């Protein structure tokens, strides 16, 4: 069961921190700023076979455009409600406020995200290419 796939959505600034942490079988989607993420993007990720999604952005108050991570937090809460209604556990989605010198938080979150996926198993998505 080591083929659990975790998508990390991060902003341009955190791209290097995330890639430097080089987490295995995880994909990184970098956007200009976390403020660009809307519910459809995260739902799409689950639909395309992601077992878990980590939204990693700058620390609140330090975003280059100032409101990216606040908006991402609201978006993640909204998606978590939708996922609960649809029948996917909300634990598969996590937002993490990261700073360039705290890559250890990302690694820790990635580890216990893997445990969550092992515990919950794959959401058996028909459409996802397995």
């Amino acid at each position, binding site marked *: 069961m080591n083929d659990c796939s975790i998508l990390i959505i991060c902003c341009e600034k955190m791209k290097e921190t995330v890639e430097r942490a080089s987490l295995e079988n995880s994909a990184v989607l970098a956007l200009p700023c976390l403020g660009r993420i809307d519910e459809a993007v995260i739902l799409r990720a689950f639909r395309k076979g992601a077992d878990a999604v980590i939204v990693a952005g700058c*620390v609140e108050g330090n975003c280059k455009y100032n409101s990216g991570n606040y908006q991402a937090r609201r978006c993640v809460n909204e998606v978590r409600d939708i996922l609960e209604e649809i029948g996917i556990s909300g634990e598969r989605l996590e937002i993490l406020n990261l*700073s*360039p010198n705290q890559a*250890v938080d990302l690694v820790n979150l990635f580890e216990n995200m893997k445990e969550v996926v092992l515990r919950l198993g794959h959401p058996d998505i028909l459409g996802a290419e397995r």
Partner: protein
Amino acid sequence: MYEVGIIGGGAAGLAAALELSRRRVSSVVIDSDKHIGGLSRDLCCKANPVCQRCDACSPVDIRREVRKSPFVTLISSSDVIDASGGPGAYTLSLQSSSGISEIEVKSVIVAIGSPTFDAARDARYRYSDCADVLTSRDLETMMISGNISVPSTGKTPQSLAVIQCVGSRDAKHGAPYCSKVCCKYSLKLVKRVRKELPEIEVTFFYRDWRPSDREYDKLAEYGKEKGVHVVRSRPAEVIIGSRPLVRYATVEDEVREDPFDIVVLAVGLQPPQNSQKLASSLGMECNQYGFFIKKGEGAYAAGCCTGPKDIRESVEEGIAAAGKAAAFLEGLQ
């Protein structure tokens, strides 16, 4: 042959290198440590959870941009033992594991920073004899690794004492000046610790609250919070026991000894070592404590080596020095 030689790869040095690379001026950064980054390298982010503007991440961003810039050459684990020549043509002699080498530069920026006060020198706080007495830097490395535990017992601490002005405002240990940064730094570090351990009891031992920016009443405000005590007194000593006891005189002139799980010493900034030799070889001067004096053309100083300051001011001073060096080089042509 480089245009600017930057001695010291800390926050100020790298900021200068980055600013010069933005102006397409080539520079070489010489750092004595194996890893480039200096004092600000092992600082954790103090967000609790909102950013407290502790500036710890700005040297990290700068270091990453410098690594990508083609104009900057990084030389680590090599010391500048001697320098000669005058403005426009300096030769720096470097000593590293692979022997001595010479580098020709047109202008020099000294950014060797300043070490923190070695807490063992202040015997009253028994830093070397008791494992539970830490300096703020030890607590910092513990924070970065993510688990805060009492060194001797391994359990999570219930109470924490922060003693300010260790190794600054202290003529006996050669540091009668105030290090200007420990007040604001300690408050942010404590707020970050209390984000991790919300129910920890914290006691501040301070003499004068000297914040940065306009946070004049922040400590008094924070003192009103549950579990935070603010005591205006300079502790006499730390007594070793199962838990370290801090012995201090209270405002009402009675002597008290309170036990704490961890005692953190907010260590000040010491002048850079043997700065006199480097200064005279570059035609610069030092004040009576060994901090560089910013004067003259060709050789500039930036960062903590010109006086205790915080990361933001060091980075600004690095940028200013880079500007002066760039202007000086244009003048040469």
